[in-house]
């Protein structure tokens, strides 16, 4: 028995180049893969006090936080959806930060579901209200959302990733109905309100004006990165609404000689201000984990600023409240400043939702918006009809959760 236990205990350590003899490495669960994961690994490697092992838990991260066996429980988790902090089963497992790093008030409030208890600290924040284009495309840019319902160049939309569609929806809704946006959640009634239906209709109209049926059909097979490539590598489209972290994708895969430019997601009218939807990843220390976890969170998110993190920010695609905007490449300093100074910004709606409306491939808000997208672009339904159908499904789905 003993030998087997010892053997099993050896397994996780075997592949991970376990460092300092005696103490086990600090386990950090993240959701990224690919480039972002590689970048994060270089950051974690620099942690001076302990060896850190990082693993991607992907979409399973919520389950990981709901309480698995201690053998695999992470000490620190970096979560992509703020909604998780509001889930009682997860919140109970989080150790509040006793000495949280200084972060702007707006951001601090978001991670304090119970006043006075800071549950986590922002590791990475994102500006989700940008529209990107080639600097030289020479088309008139849409000044307002209504102007965008008339053709303003071909849109590129990564409709295979539901979060790209929900970012669109959030921007349109926030631009048109800044009062309704923060109230929306799991209550069914609000989803049936006229504001939501009108936003869906406007959204469908913009999508319909921006692409042909064939382009819509193709868009359903494109992910976020593919949609960026269509504008900056293959030049088959003109505009792509995407967060600030489109920057490194353009830098890495864009065709030679292409310069990227962006503008703020258009306002509802000339009088109103443009919407600002924000998102981000929160670093948490977990109760079940090592007591040193909080120190790691503070190191990661505090003013100490690991050098690798600053290098990452310098290359673009990484914004954080504790990193001054000047560190970012010139093109991203504006959005970075807007985030740090944010007061009336709104946090990504789909990352706040819980229950049946919560996101994920093929479910919830994502699924309903995918079908709206299909109706607007591929089958060319009237925007009003498509929006009414989508609103009815939103209400029905929200009710499922209430029942």
């Amino acid at each position, binding site marked *: 028995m003993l030998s087997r236990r010892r053997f099993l205990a050896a397994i996780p350590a075997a592949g991970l180049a376990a460092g300092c003899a005696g103490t086990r490495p600090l386990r950090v669960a993240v959701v990224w*893969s690919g480039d972002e994961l*590689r970048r994060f690994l270089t950051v974690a490697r620099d942690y001076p006090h302990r060896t850190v092992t990082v693993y991607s838990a992907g979409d399973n991260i919520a389950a990981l936080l709901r309480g698995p066996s201690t053998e*695999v429980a992470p000490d620190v988790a970096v979560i992509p959806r703020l909604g998780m902090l509001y889930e009682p089963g997860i919140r109970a497992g989080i150790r509040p930060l006793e000495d949280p790093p200084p972060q702007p008030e707006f951001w601090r409030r978001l991670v304090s579901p119970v006043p006075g208890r800071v549950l986590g600290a922002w590791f990475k924040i994102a500006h989700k209200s940008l529209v990107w284009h080639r600097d030289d495309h020479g088309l008139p840019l849409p000044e307002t959302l209504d102007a965008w319902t008339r053709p303003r160049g071909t849109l590129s939309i990564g*409709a295979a990733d539901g979060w790209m569609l929900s970012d669109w929806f959030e921007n349109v809704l926030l631009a048109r109905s800044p009062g309704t946006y923060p109230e929306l959640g799991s209550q069914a009634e609000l989803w049936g309100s006229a504001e939501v239906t009108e936003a869906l209709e406007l959204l469908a109209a913009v999508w319909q004006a921006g692409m042909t049926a064939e382009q819509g*059909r193709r868009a*359903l097979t494109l*992910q976020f*990165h593919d949609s960026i490539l269509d504008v900056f590598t293959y030049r088959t489209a003109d505009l792509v609404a995407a967060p600030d972290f489109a920057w490194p994708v353009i830098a890495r895969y864009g065709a030679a000689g292409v310069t990227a430019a962006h503008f703020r997601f258009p306002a509802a009218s000339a009088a109103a201000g443009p919407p600002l939807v924000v998102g981000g990843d929160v670093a948490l220390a977990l109760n079940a984990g090592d007591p040193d976890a909080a120190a790691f969170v503070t190191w990661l998110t505090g003013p100490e600023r690991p050098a690798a993190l600053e290098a990452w920010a310098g290359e673009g695609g990484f914004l954080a409240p504790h990193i001054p905007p000047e560190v970012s490449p010139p093109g991203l300093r504006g959005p970075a400043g807007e985030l740090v100074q944010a007061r009336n910004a709104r946090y990504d709606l789909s990352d706040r939702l819980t229950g049946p409306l919560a996101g994920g491939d093929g479910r919830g808000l994502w699924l309903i918006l995918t079908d709206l997208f299909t109706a607007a672009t*591929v089958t060319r339904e009237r925007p009003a009809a498509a929006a009414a159908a989508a609103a009815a499904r939103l209400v029905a789905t929200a009710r499922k959760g209430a029942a």
Partner: protein
Amino acid sequence: MSEDAFLYEVAPHHDTRGPAAQHGIGRWRAARYLLLAVLLAAGVLLAPLAATVLISLSDGLGHYRVLTDPDVLRALGNSLVWLGLAVLVCAAGFGLAWLARDVGPRLGGVLRVVLVLPAVVSPLTTGAIFRLLFDTNPQRGAVNAVLAAFGADVAFLGLGWIWLVLGLAFLWQWSGVAFLVFHEALARMPASLLRMAQAFGLERRRQIWSIVLPSLAGAASLAYLLAVVAAARVFDLVLMGAPGSMQPWVEPGGQFWWRHHSDLGTGPAAALAVLLSVLVGLLALPALAGLRRQVTWPEQRAAPHGRRSRRRLLMGPLAALWLLPFVVLVLTSLRAPEAAAVSGWWHIQADLRSYGDALADSGFTGALLTTLVRTVVVVALVLLAAVPAAYVLAQEHLVPRRAWRPVLLVAVALAALPPQAFAVPLQESLSRLVGSTLALVTVHAALVIPLAVLVLHRGFARVRAPVMARHRWALVHAMREGSPSVVLAGVLAFVLVWNDTLVGLLLNWPAGDHLPLILLEQNRHFMSTAGTLAAQSVIATAVPVALVIVTRRLLYRGLTGGVRA
């Protein structure tokens, strides 16, 4: 008359030699031998299954109103399409076997390996390969690049067409298994009967109806059963092969259940899980009925024909076509990561940076090792439980022939049972253990044991009784003589655990240390990680492929005879 049935025959043996240790072991010892397998099967599969059934009935039949939900119906409709594809797999396997029936031993041997190899590839990898082949962008997708030359442009991964892509992937993956079954059956066709029929001038149609078809019934049932089980387990192929937006259009009931079971509520989710199991059971019934009929191949493999068919000319290129997906994967992995993201695999490069990236990812290398160790532990546990159990079940004085039939039914049913049917109660009972190595190893072992028992039983049942053996050593003797079956069971267990995505996801296994889940993570940005994903898939695929190639002779013996030559 030597019986040499394929994989496992259900028909009783008329073998005068009798199985090993006929005078056999006592009941107490037999019970001890069965203990581990029964405990694992009962604790991990049967008890949670019973709990699922009870939960689904907790409101009378009320929870079964889940069938009125249009989304559920769509998913069940997709399940039926996938099960229809299972029939297509059998047809394709038979067609291939018919074409290859007299290509000679060498090409036949090559085909057996080449066509069966896809079956040991993770469906995640299969999905990735076909997604690369059919990418919508003609700069990256080979099929669209060819079509572009004719001015056509099809969004293959999109609405409607996605079925074609995934259907082809499914056919590629499983047709080889059906091929193997039919190829063997055709080679054992009762040639003397056919010659006699010809001599008596029986018309060709009568020959087919009265000789060919009956002698193929057993093989067809087996091929169908394997394909139905594969179709019922479709999961990771969709997760990797279809863009997120398209998954609801193609995902079968089991995958829908995985995504929505917490939204459906405990009762309706349990009802849906029961329905899915019943659906698989109903569709597997014809196969069981077919297998129950006496299937004997009274002749040894027919000696190879003197003349070689011109079909050789066809089968050679076909084997090459079957290897194409492997070629696509390897060529993609040999491209620079940036190049692989923006252009197709036919721009050949020899750049090892994708491998460099793959191996620099400590999560991947760690998972590679952890998964390997864990898989080996599961294989050991499976054999530890299944070998003694199968040995006891092969004892005729303990399990008489008529009693074997229900045992077989239970074993087949458990081997085919969708894990959704017992996942929730199991997860609840394991809640403190979820994520622990012990839990995953136990669950995996329990899932594979029924299949292993089936394979091993067949081998042990035909081990010849040693003249002088003392029963203490009979088990060792049976293992040695039946070593091909033991190897077959071990390799099957290895491949199933190595490639598993479903159980890991259902048990909320953290992605951190299980190889397929690491690969799955890459589909968040499928095209831009194509190079790294391909390199990681090549490494992940090389292990089971190497295992199969190294053990291929024993595996073949295990599949056809079960005992040493």
